[in-house]
């Protein structure tokens, strides 16, 4: 079954004390703020979810609105759909206020046709009815010509008025007086600042509206119940557009964020005092504050330009970002940044190589090759070696030697300067240096041709480097050219050694729609077939190879063994557009699937990334069931209050749950032996138990063991490199 994981466009999120709700694609994701895990998805909308809103009268329920023309009411702790209100028009955002009982405010297109660029704010009286599906057609327009941006409309103090910013105009509508005031700004001021409104926020207690502008200014409007005598003050820290503003619930602070990826906290009425939370990783698109003011949530636009993101595929959670460039990301349109263009892991996942380059019009190309070692203690990558200018021209390919048993770790890189280089980890000659570092071992070239790609064989005894239509095979031990293989015409696009029993085969794809397979024992072409392969990769745990063929805007997938002419699995039109990157992620536990068509997924799972940044994978039926089960179990865990003692109890119950689930997912590992100790503890009468402090440390310890187990059992290959915009 094909499962699509949409890119996380968090259009709008709400934050309550323990849960964070984010609209993501067609569903709403519920995250726990304590564990940062996604607890469950609220599924039901048929089009993009455009807004999420806590129900003002009941903080355990949430409204979500979608472009499919419905508003749904959920119990988000249990993930149950309570009601569906059919509005009939695409909805772009949703607002509600505690003072307007039973009424929600929606932004819909001004005319009923969908193409119109004009939007209006309408009030919808929600009918009281017991049915699950309710038609709500009583719309009354409140404001015309509003922005579809959810951040551009906000309720004022106690819901007495609503403020809407659109373009260059701020409009405040007072419900009691039924009167609207408009405050236009000039398009731009003399200094060139653009005055366009980006977002609004209202102070919860005072009559003060904060607006964010395109030039980075924040205006605080007061006295806006006068047509002329309104006034505003200006705060300026952001240098580019302010994309989100939010007052804290008590109104003591104002939070703002923008492209600088810095969260700025302004003291209300003491605006010269401000605090910063810098280096949040990416531009801030939305800020939400939990009602008790204890938690701030920022959502970011994912422009992973300088950062590599590590995603745990099995947990659907961003593991960590690694700042490769280690330069403060100064956003400035037109300013050239260091860009990470290539990255590679070695097989065991303890080395990462990255290439970054900066090309300025006048200056020469700047290249940096960085090698990172995985640190078990800190659970992150630590920079080991930086090689500036490793090549004279752009690096075209890079690969680590895969041999797990070999003593030396090797990296091969090919460049447009006509050379390929092998880099080796070696202890420094100077003994005062602590650890080994990387240095160049060999520089090779072939007939002034430009090397395009390189590949190590599974045992690390061979290195294949392609020079246009010629494939050269080298021995890394002695660095001699063993043989050349060639299948003209057409330059080689991809090279791949077979694995395990097929390791005698070398596969290559050429630009001329040819997939060739050479037998390295005979140094002859074993077979070749005509197909336009855009990406070729081998499964490290089996003989399987996957080939993605791009045809007429769609990508087809073939899985085959080099030794067998018949593909194991083929699927037409897996996705639209080209597949840019793919990876076989080894499974923690081997599946024992008996279906022939899914046997190739037993050892590892195939993940691939399309040109539209969709990350996709193949799952089996059994896995799907398991996923559902585990998500249910997580909910039960989280819905009970987290008292310290409950930790003890809950752990135990979870154990039981797992046992009951055991029949369904037999392969699931039982939790570490710590649980036995817990059971013992629980059975012991309270008066003979040791002091709580002693108990506490014990539990912490038991938790630690399990955490380590998970980490050690998950090889770093699971980390998926989402960065792939080259």
């Amino acid at each position, binding site marked *: 079954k094909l499962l699509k994981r949409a890119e996380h466009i968090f259009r709008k999120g709400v934050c309550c004390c323990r849960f964070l709700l984010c609209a993501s694609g067609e569903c709403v994701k519920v995250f726990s703020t304590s564990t940062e895990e996604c607890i469950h998805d609220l599924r039901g909308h048929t089009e993009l979810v455009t807004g999420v809103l806590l129900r003002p009268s009941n903080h355990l329920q949430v409204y979500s609105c979608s472009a499919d023309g419905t508003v749904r009411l959920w119990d988000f702790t249990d993930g149950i759909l309570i009601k569906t209100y059919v509005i009939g028009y695409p909805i772009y955002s949703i607002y509600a206020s505690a003072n307007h009982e039973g009424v929600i405010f929606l932004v819909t297109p001004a005319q009923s046709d969908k193409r119109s660029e004009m939007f209006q704010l309408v009030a919808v009286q929600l009918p009281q009815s017991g049915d699950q599906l309710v038609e709500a057609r009583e719309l009354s327009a409140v404001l015309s010509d509003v922005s579809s941006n959810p951040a551009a409309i906000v309720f004022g103090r106690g819901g007495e008025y609503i403020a809407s910013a659109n373009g260059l105009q701020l409009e405040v509508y007072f419900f009691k007086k039924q009167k609207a005031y408009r405050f236009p700004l000039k398009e731009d001021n003399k200094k060139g600042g653009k005055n366009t409104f980006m977002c609004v926020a209202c102070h919860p207690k005072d009559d003060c509206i904060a607006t964010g502008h395109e030039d980075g200014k924040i205006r605080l409007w007061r*006295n806006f119940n006068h047509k002329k005598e309104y*006034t505003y003050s200006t705060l300026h820290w952001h240098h580019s557009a302010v994309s989100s503003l939010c007052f804290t619930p008590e109104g003591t602070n104002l939070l703002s964020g923008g492209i600088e990826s810095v969260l700025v906290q302004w003291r209300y009425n003491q605006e*010269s*005092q401000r605090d910063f939370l810098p280096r949040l990783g990416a531009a801030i698109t939305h800020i939400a504050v939990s009602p008790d003011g204890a938690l701030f949530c920022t959502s970011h636009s994912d422009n992973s330009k300088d950062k590599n993101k590590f995603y745990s595929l099995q947990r659907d959670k961003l593991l960590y970002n690694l700042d490769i460039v280690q330069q403060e990301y100064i956003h400035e349109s037109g300013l050239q940044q260091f860009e990470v263009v290539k990255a590679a892991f070695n097989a065991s996942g303890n080395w990462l190589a990255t290439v970054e380059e900066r090309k300025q019009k006048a200056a020469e190309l700047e290249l940096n090759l960085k090698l990172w070692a995985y640190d078990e203690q800190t659970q992150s990558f630590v920079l080991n070696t930086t090689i500036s200018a490793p090549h004279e021209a752009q690096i075209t390919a890079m690969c680590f030697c895969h041999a797990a048993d070999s003593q030396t770790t090797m990296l091969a890189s090919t460049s447009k300067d006509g050379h390929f280089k092998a880099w080796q980890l070696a202890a420094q000659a100077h003994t005062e240096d602590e650890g080994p570092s990387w240095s160049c071992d060999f520089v090779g070239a072939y007939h002034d041709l430009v090397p395009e790609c390189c590949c190590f064989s599974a045992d690390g005894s061979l290195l294949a480097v392609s020079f246009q239509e010629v494939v050269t095979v080298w021995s890394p031990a002695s660095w001699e050219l063993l043989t050349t293989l060639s299948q003209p015409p057409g330059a080689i696009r991809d090279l791949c050694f077979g694995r395990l029993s097929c390791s005698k085969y070398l596969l290559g794809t050429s630009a001329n729609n040819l997939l060739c397979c050479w037998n390295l024992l005979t140094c002859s072409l074993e077979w070749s077939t005509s197909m336009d392969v855009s990406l070729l990769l081998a499964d490290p745990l089996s003989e399987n190879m996957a080939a993605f063929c791009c045809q007429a805007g769609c990508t087809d997938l073939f899985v085959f063994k080099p030794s067998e002419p018949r593909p194991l699995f083929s699927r037409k039109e897996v996705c639209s557009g080209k597949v840019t990157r793919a990876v076989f992620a080894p499974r923690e536990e081997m599946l024992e699937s008996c279906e022939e068509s899914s046997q190739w997924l037993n050892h590892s799972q195939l993940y691939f990334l399309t040109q539209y940044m969709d990350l996709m994978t193949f799952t089996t039926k059994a896995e799907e069931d398991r996923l559902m089960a585990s998500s249910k179990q997580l909910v039960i865990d989280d819905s009970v209050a987290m008292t310290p003692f409950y930790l003890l109890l809950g752990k135990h119950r979870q154990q039981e749950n797992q046992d009951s689930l055991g029949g369904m997912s037999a392969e699931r590992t039982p939790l570490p032996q710590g649980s036995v100790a817990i059971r013992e503890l629980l059975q012991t009468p309270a008066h003979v138990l040791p002091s709580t402090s002693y108990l506490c440390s014990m539990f912490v310890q038991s938790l630690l063991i399990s955490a380590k187990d998970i980490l050690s059992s998950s090889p770093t290959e699971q980390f998926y490199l989402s960065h792939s915009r080259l």
Partner: protein
Amino acid sequence: MGEFKVHRVRFFDYMPSAIRAMAFNSRTERLAVARADGALEIFNFADHYFQEKVIPGQDGRAVEALCWVGQRLFSAGLNGEITEYDLENMRPRYTVEAYGGPIWTISSNSQGTLLAVGCEDGTVKMFELLDERIRFQRNLERQKGRIISLSWHPSGTLIAAGMMDMIRIFDAETGHATHRLLVERGAGASKSKEVVVWSIAFLSDHTIVSGDSAGKVQIWDGLTGTLVKTHLVTKWDVLALAVSQDESSLVAGTSEGTVVQFQFIASTVDQQDKEWVRTRTFKNHSHDVRALAHTETAVVSGGMDTQLVVRPLLDKVEKNTQESALRKIAFPHRSLVCCAKKAGLLLFQFPDHLELWRVGESDGLGKPGDSLPVKRNPEKLIQLKRKGEDHICCSALSPCGGWLAYSTVSAVRLYRIQYNNISITKVSKLPKDLRSAHQLCFSSDSSKLFASSSHSSVVIVSLNQLECKHLHTLKPRSGSRQPVHLLFASEDGKWLAAANADCEIHVYNLHKLKLHCTVPVHSSCPTAIAIHPVTSNLVVVHADQQIFEYSLMQKEYTEWSRKLQKQGLHSLWLERDTPVTHISYSPKNPAHIFLHDMFMFCIIDQSLPLPEAKTMLYNQMTLRSLPEPERIRHSHAFKICKNFQHLLCVSLLEDHSLVVVERPLLDIMSQLPAPVRQKKFAT
């Protein structure tokens, strides 16, 4: 428009003086501005911010504070004296020594009966206001440390005084201090430095607002003496405060050149209790804002960068009107340059000296826009230092260049200049009637000197090699007491026109030595007058940018003037914010009138049709791109040239070449001291 050889003069190093103090009289709508050199300027805010009067400075008079009491204007300075000014004769009326060391501040109670001054020795001295003088009344309780700022409570019973590190509240009746408000010092390194309360304001609800050297604007409760709120406005000093008449808005000027507005606003819409909230920030100055005034519709600020800035408050004025435009007044509204047309000489007036220059010469020919090779460089012939401690208030050079005259508030001096080997001789015996002049002017044949004297009278002195004789004193019939600020003698020597601050223009017949006529009074003050050499029509431009042409023969407005008034001037012409300061005529083409303001010079061709409201006013560039026959159809009477900027004088010489005296504002800016250091983004 025609082609001219242009002398582009940039050697007039005019340097305006920094603004020190300001006082606004809301009843008469006059703003008094004191400059660092002691000069005083009166701007009429009811008449397009026209600089009505200038009282020249004096060596050693450093005005630190200004105060209006009704129509009377007082100043106090670090020389320890209080001065009252005679605004009719534009001179100090009298000076009173306060005997308390340098005076930092002066303030009158709202009843206009008492004047309080704050002195270096820690005393607040009260002066009683009498009809003609002021009289010392008593001292308030003496404090340690100087009194920097003072403010009366509107009831007149309490006075708040800003000092070093504290604010004192005095009971004005008993003279005792009732409260002592301690002002916190700045953080960090400035902790050891005393904080100076530069400015203070006592509001009618007993709120005290203070601005200090630690960059704070603090709101105090004057009844209990407690601090209500602190607004940190700048890293540097808050130098000035000004409160609006209705006490709903106040502004604070800082060393960074910003003006920060605070407004008295209810925090929620329908509630009554209000608080002071920081709202707008205006940045129109590069240097310290030393003086501020809050008028009903605008914030007026001035400081070290010498410009007076009128920033209208957009919530108080109609949008997109002339009133809502920002105004910067950089140059005086009167001429500091005198041009001898026949001799090609320029006289530059500085407060303490005069410079006489001969313009350069060139015989080259070139295309329009070319710069010509200079045959003879312009040369400074004479630099004449004034005598005495009074600054020069006006000067004149005769058209032939043979006579030079200047006046201070105390004396008029006349010099004879010889050019064969340059020599200057003072004319020693001047008639007694010629004691002091507000404006000087020579007749076109250099045989007479006209000097405007008190009560709008004009003294005529005949000049010849042997002696200078008082001929006559011309007096207007209106009996106006205002000074004459414009004088113009016609080319044929028959007419003399004089305009005064009452907006009257009197034309005298010099042959008969009596008043010929008075031009109908327009509501706005004339800024430039001239009499046509051929037709004897008087052209007047007023501060509201209106142009009138008055026929002296018929004693009525000319046909052209009526047509102009009927059709109305172009809106862009009326929107200009600097007055026309000079009018001249072309001897070649009698239909041409030359006039200029700070940003443009204009030739009005009276033979061409007037511009319609919809036509482009500034059309010289588009005309140039049109083919010849089209041009005539599109051209109109106003030919405006903006090639030269920041003009102090444009004049036509006898040889039909144009003298353009420019003083780019950037040159002035570059001569100012360095502003306070500010961290700029990305530096």
